[in-house]
């Protein structure tokens, strides 16, 4: 998140949409509670009346998958009623930038942006890819962007934004989302009030927004709103992703996804054979005045990363050559992995601390894919549906050739290391107990694997041993979390003098400002450079002082980057460095001392008013200002409402384009018998969403085996309205079957007042919801019941991230005929 958990208490208005913190981040709710005690308003928008809604001042229902319509209506309301923070918008965003006149928007371009080349699908809409050439700005001769500070020019971003969202009238939004108009306006007004200087609004989201074919654009909508209202960089503001796992922030930071290296550096592409080419392609340049363009430092970070892998014995270009490259135009994400696995293109698979047989969308396809493997290694605490896939429901073990190895691993309290939370805080954890039996920490397993693979390469050779054999591995025979943490921070590999100070070889680098592009420094992750220095392991600090009063707690653990707690905090002050909110300042410029006080400033330069040395606040953007117009995404510079791939209505009320045109379709190159879909199909008339409960976690591999948790939520259930239950003659507590085009699950019906049918375009639409914590493996494995929600979800993903659309798909619910 841009802010952090404790910061929620500083908000005047908290919008919870696309998440349910009371249920799923209960400890964090303490800070939301503190905000409420100080008079803040809590707004909850959700298809269901959740535990968060139970604490909210305003609750509004919503059809799953229509968040952009809802938020688009809010953008229109803010623009029409002049609720936006004008000075902030003009100086800190690209609202004043002039866009190329060739740029076309969905309102007068058949529902798509300009530059789309694609084909019409059998459902009748276009699917393809965008050429983003027209999504560009008009340039001055000196290479800077043309802009209109009055923001009146019809081609300026703000005017185009207004024009684009003028179609999102409250009436239209009500028709699409099902949210009553008076509730829409109440929410727009309440939240829009945070546009005043000194007022802060924060938004909390999670998988409710990301797991859609328009997932990234959902978040973009909110980012635009937050920028319009001046809520970025301030206390109690921000766009705050509540991560679904305690260390998934750490996993993305350290590059566990295919498209990024640690520190969000791009994975080298095959088309970039040298480091020079890589740096040329990936390092942004700018001519804009007062723009720090921090990514211009990328070559330093890439070089230091390469040095963390391969020390100075290898020239940088040679080190780059050893790095694996991704082929052009190929997607290596989760959905693709299992598609290719099904087609027999994988011989082996490490299911490391995961349970794809339950967590993968279209889990039947995943389970079938696993049967094609020659071997699998299941690293986990407990037996699960993945490791035991071969004896799962419907499987014939005698026909499966996969050899499965189970490596029991340590739980989090049985090993030492760090966890990075949603607030970017890296917090060190100690080992409390020994693991039972043969279980080992993951790091120990990886270390053992490395040493053995290395030995095999040395003794037997292989196709390409160099990337392994030339690795620098200074951690010893056994995994040492401190050694790795220090490597991540980075070292000086030779004596260096910087700004008059001599740093000797072997010294830990103080921060990423000291990293070099010539291979004289190493850093396993530039973002974490500053976390473990000569001053010690900062992640292990436990100081409880908070001089700021806004909950920064600078001496508790360590946050990236460089212990900055609220990022983009230069946007929390005006041109002269005076905070918009004097009672909750994040940073403040002291003109006499010529220094900032408060949080670590997002760049220590003087305020913007200093035309010589001052810098604009959004330093990670090339122009130094935030993107209201966002040309960096593959599916549009502005968010546009599209229906989910499986939806209950046969047309998109906003435009002729039904579904996000940039979504990857699997019809032509997928697995036809498994990649099934059914939209506006009378067999599957109800909108279904997936979610969590407090008592279980992920696919329940740990929590189903914990009796005190299983006792509270023992079984798979499906929540539905009284109206739907009556329609299908289902009683509360009765067993039912939920089916989609891809599979079926058995569940107990919870008939509740907290879900109501919605009126969508004049017709009644029913929604149901299911948790995804259950699987056949435990409890009662002998029944081999179908309990995993992902047996129903579609393997169709957001075009930017490929996150599956698990939050909106179509199902049917029927009474179960046969009792167990």
């Amino acid at each position, binding site marked *: 998140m841009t802010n952090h958990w404790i910061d929620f208490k500083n908000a005047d208005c908290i919008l919870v949409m696309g998440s349910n913190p009371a249920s799923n981040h209960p400890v964090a709710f303490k800070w939301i509670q503190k905000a409420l005690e100080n008079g803040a308003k809590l707004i909850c928008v959700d298809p269901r009346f959740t535990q968060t809604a139970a604490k909210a001042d305003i609750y509004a229902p919503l059809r799953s998958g229509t968040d952009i319509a809802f938020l688009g209506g809010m953008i229109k309301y803010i623009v029409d009623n002049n609720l936006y923070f004008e000075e902030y918008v003009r100086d800190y965003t690209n609202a004043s930038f002039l866009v190329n006149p060739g740029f076309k928007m969905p309102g007068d371009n058949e529902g798509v942006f300009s530059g789309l080349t694609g084909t019409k699908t059998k459902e009748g809409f276009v699917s393809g890819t965008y050429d983003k050439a027209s999504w560009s700005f008009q340039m001055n001769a000196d290479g800077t962007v043309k802009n209109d500070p009055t923001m009146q020019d019809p081609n300026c971003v703000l005017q185009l934004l207004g024009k684009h969202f003028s179609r999102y009238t409250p009436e239209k939004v009500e028709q699409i989302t099902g949210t009553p108009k008076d509730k829409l306006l109440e929410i727009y007004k309440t939240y829009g009030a945070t546009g005043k200087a000194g007022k802060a609004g924060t938004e909390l989201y999670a998988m409710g927004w990301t797991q859609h074919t328009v997932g990234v654009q959902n978040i973009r909508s909110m980012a635009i709103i937050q920028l319009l209202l001046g809520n970025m960089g301030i206390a109690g503001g921000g766009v705050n992703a509540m991560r679904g796992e305690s260390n998934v922030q750490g996993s993305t930071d350290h590059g566990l996804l295919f498209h990024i290296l640690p520190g969000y550096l791009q994975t080298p592409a095959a088309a970039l054979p040298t480091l020079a080419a890589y740096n040329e392609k990936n390092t942004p340049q700018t001519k804009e005045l007062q723009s720090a363009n921090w990514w211009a430092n990328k070559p330093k970070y890439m070089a230091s990363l390469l040095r963390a892998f391969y020390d100075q014995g290898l020239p940088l270009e040679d080190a780059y050559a050893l790095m694996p490259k991704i082929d052009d135009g190929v997607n290596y994400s989760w959905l693709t992995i299992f598609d290719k696995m099904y087609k027999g293109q994988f011989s082996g698979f490490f299911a490391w601390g995961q349970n794809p047989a339950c967590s993968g969308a279209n889990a039947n396809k995943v389970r079938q894919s696993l049967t094609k493997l020659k071997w699998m290694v299941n690293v986990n605490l407990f037996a699960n549906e993945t490791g035991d896939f071969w004896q799962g429901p419907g499987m014939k073990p005698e026909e499966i050739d996969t050899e499965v190895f189970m490596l029991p691993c340590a739980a989090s309290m049985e090993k030492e290391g760090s966890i990075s939370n949603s607030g970017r805080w890296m917090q060190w954890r100690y080992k409390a107990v020994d693991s039972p039996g043969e279980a080992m920490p993951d790091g120990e397993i990886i270390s053992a694997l490395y040493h053995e693979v290395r030995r095999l390469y040395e003794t037997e050779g292989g196709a390409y041993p160099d990337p392994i054999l030339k690795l620098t591995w200074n951690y010893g025979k056994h995994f040492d979390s401190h050694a790795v943490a220090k490597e991540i921070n980075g070292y000086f590999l030779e004596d260096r003098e910087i700004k008059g100070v001599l740093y000797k070889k072997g010294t830990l680098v103080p921060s990423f400002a000291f990293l070099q592009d010539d291979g004289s420094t190493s850093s396993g992750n530039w973002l974490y450079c500053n976390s473990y220095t000569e001053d010690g392991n900062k992640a292990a600090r436990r100081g409880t002082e908070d001089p700021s009063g806004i909950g920064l707690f600078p001496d508790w653990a360590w946050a990236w980057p460089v212990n900055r707690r609220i990022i983009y905090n230069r946007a929390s002050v005006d041109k002269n460095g005076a905070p918009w909110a004097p009672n909750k300042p994040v940073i403040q410029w002291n003109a006499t001392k010529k220094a900032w006080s408060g949080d670590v400033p997002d760049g220590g330069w003087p305020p913007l008013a200093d035309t010589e040395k001052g810098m604009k606040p959004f330093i990670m953007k090339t122009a130094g200002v935030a993107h209201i117009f966002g040309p960096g995404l593959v599916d549009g510079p502005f968010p546009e409402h599209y229906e989910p791939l499986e939806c209950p209505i046969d047309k998109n009320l906003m435009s002729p384009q039904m579904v996000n045109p940039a979504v990857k379709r699997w019809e032509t190159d997928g697995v036809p018998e498994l990649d099934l879909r059914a939209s506006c199909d009378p067999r599957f008339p109800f909108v279904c969403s997936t979610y969590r409960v*407090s008592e279980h976690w992920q696919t329940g591999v740990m929590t189903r085996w914990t*009796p005190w948790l299983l006792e*509270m939520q023992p079984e798979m259930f499906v929540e539905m309205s009284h109206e739907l239950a009556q329609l299908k003659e289902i009683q509360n507590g009765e067993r039912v079957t939920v089916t989609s085009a891809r599979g079926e699950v058995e569940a*107990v019906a*919870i008939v509740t007042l907290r879900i109501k049918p919605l009126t969508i375009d004049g017709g009644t639409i029913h929604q149901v919801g299911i948790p995804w914590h259950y699987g056949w493996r435990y409890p009662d494995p002998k029944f081999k019941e179908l309990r995993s929600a992902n047996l129903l979800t579609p393997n169709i993903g957001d075009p930017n991230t490929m996150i599956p659309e698990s939050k909106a798909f179509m199902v049917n619910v029927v009474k179960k005929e046969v009792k167990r």
Partner: protein
Amino acid sequence: MKNSSFLIDLTKCTGCRSCQVACKQWNELPAERTVNTGSYQNPLLLSSQTWTLIKFDEFEKQGKMHWLFTKIGCMHCEQPACVSICPVGALQKTESGAVIYNKNVCIGCRYCMIACPFHIPTFEWKKAFPFIKKCTFCFDRLAEGQKPACVCACPTGAITFGTRNDMINKAHGLINKRSNTYNPHLYGEKEVGGTAVMVLAPRDVAFSDLGFPKLSERPLPTWTWNALKFVPSQIVLVSAAMAFFYWLTKRKMKKKDADKEVQHDA
């Protein structure tokens, strides 16, 4: 700490059930094998293995949707009915405020279960030598200067702990400061003479909506004592009356016999 109390602020409870698990963990209580009956509430009832739980109630009132989460468990009354009627004195109200149970003298008569106005004590129906089970106020933790397990586990501060006076003052302070948020009544301040566990509810929700019984301020043991206090005088009066009537009867019979004798003689 003497005379301590719980303050349970239901406006802050999100139904996360950390308290339910913390109680099980601290008291090493086994989990029950449950099924989903169409609610998040599980187990559905208190039992010898479940000493506190969160009740889930959903209802619509005046057009507003409510989903309430209510912690139930022993109220640790100031003048407990169970303590007053246990024939062997197995239940005691302690200085700390806890109502504790001594399994070393309990005869398993279950009178305490009948007496409790909150239906709290549970029984080990499956054991050959069954005992009564209920929330212990984490009496053992208090002895070590620790707060009760549920208090420590609650993430939102819905459960707080302190002296009874402090908790009463705190509750009324909250009611006054945020009158739009709270039901103005502090449940347990006066009911049945006061309970050590006191509850605040959201404003437009009645305590009876949540299953809290409507009780008068009169401590229940006073009903019993109003009768038992006459026992000593009852013993004296009845014995004396019977002795008197016996003496009268004996005198009448003597007189009759004497008359008969006189007749006989005559």
